[in-house]
């Protein structure tokens, strides 16, 4: 599903974000990217949905070589990839269901499909009763659930999560991780960057550890360190 071959990325001012990184992630895997701040986790994620382009090496995602993917095809790649973030990126003026619907609307899904899928996904993330609230009326955990609903409503092959529990207390984080686990069990590949030891140690999934842009560890059923 995802393959990196000797991928390097250097930012302006010679900041090496990723150096000679190689990894292969199979369909349906759940992978934690761990490492301290600035170790290259976010760059890893941003390379996968083509927000950044690698300086060297090759990246294959869902059968596409991202290096040779023309820019007009990038949106179609992204329709196969759901993204969630530490800061949720919800639209504050739209309600919960409008936020989720927006994700379908702007990729041209028909109205009938949207009317069917939005309530179903809100049911899955447990927010059916708050469909008409706006984000600022929700707790952090609930907001992240909305963001997951938006990322998953289009049933992507891959879900990328950049510190999704970064702003949440441990109890709420457990709920979010259960949800991500459930999504993963439905066949979606999940790649999650985190530096929360508790989350990684409880889940016991594959761990890729980065240190100053270099992959220093890759073990299945791993722990944080």
């Amino acid at each position, binding site marked *: 599903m995802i393959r990196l071959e000797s991928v390097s990325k250097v930012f302006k001012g010679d900041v090496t974000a990723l150096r000679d990184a190689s990894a292969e992630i199979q369909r349906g895997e759940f992978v934690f990217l761990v490492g301290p701040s600035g170790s290259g986790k976010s760059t890893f994620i941003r390379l996968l949905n083509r927000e950044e382009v690698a300086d060297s090496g090759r990246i294959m995602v869902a059968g596409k070589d991202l290096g040779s993917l023309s820019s007009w095809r990038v*949106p179609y790649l*992204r*329709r196969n990839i759901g*993204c969630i973030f530490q800061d949720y*990126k919800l639209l504050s003026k739209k309600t919960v269901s409008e936020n989720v619907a927006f994700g379908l609307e702007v*990729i*041209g899904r*028909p109205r009938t499909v949207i009317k069917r899928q939005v309530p179903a996904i809100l049911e899955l993330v447990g927010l059916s009763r708050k469909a008409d609230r706006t984000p600022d009326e929700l707790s952090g955990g609930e907001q992240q659930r909305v963001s997951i609903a*938006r*990322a998953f409503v289009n049933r992507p092959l891959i879900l990328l999560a950049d510190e999704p529990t970064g702003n949440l207390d441990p109890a709420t984080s457990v709920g979010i991780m259960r949800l991500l686990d459930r999504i993963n069990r439905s066949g979606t590949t999940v790649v999650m960057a985190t530096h929360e030891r508790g989350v990684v140690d409880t889940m016991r999934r594959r761990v890729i550890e980065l240190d100053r842009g270099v992959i220093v560890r890759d073990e299945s059923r791993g722990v944080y360190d």
Partner: protein
Amino acid sequence: MIYRLWYFIRETVVSLWRNLSLTLAAILTVGISLSLVGTSILVREGADRATAQFQEGVEFIVFMNADHTPDQDVAIRQVLDTSPAISEYAYIDKMAAYEEFQVLFVDKPELIESVTPDVMPPSYRIVPADPDAANVAELARQFSTQPGVREVATATDAIRQIEDFSTRVSQVLLVAAVVLVVVSAMLILNTVFTAIGARREEIEVMKLVGATNWFVRIPFMLEGMIHGLIGAGLAIPSLFIVEDQVLSFFQESDVVPLFRGFAVPDGFVWDTSLWLLLLGGTVGMLGSAIAVTRYLDV
């Protein structure tokens, strides 16, 4: 498809409304500049018609009798071809004269019906080597005595004054209009830029979930185009006011009889209106296209 169209319309209207003061400024500027463009075109057209026969340096016209003989033509041409006082000339035959008559009086069909090509006098339009008034008068006098010549009409000072006046007026208007058109394009660019800024979060999400570049851009392009079109819509009534008040004022003037030809045909104002709509839409599209390509890095 219809849903998508509805989405574009909804987003465009919301954005226009959110940005109301800038939107109004852009629309008014487009309206004013296009009014000037239109007025300039009307004045130019009116003057061209008033002085149609005396264009491109033609200082006097020799009208032949409708029933003149070929010999008389030959004699005139010989003078025209050999005289060093004549720079160039053009022969307008009966048919060409009739066609010109039809164009000039297109909105007076009863007048056109009353003539046929047969009765139209053929003529020579003559550009003298020296356009000095006294020289032209002397040449005109010489030609008027030639056999077969019905009359000689000279471009009087009045005609030259109309030409000068209208050229100057339409040029000044046009320069002002061009400046204002550029200003309105820049205002539209800024308005669209502000609209993009106001929706930065939405745009980020759109890109994230895989909206195509055009899907993101189209509402902003439409917004710019609507500025241009509404602006042009405001300019159109001003054209009718110019035609109704200014041009007709000249036509009814008793002071200078020549001004009576100062008119534009019926359809001309509508034609000009269409051009203004096209120009307005283009300026709007252009302004917003620059804005989305510069500030909407998708």
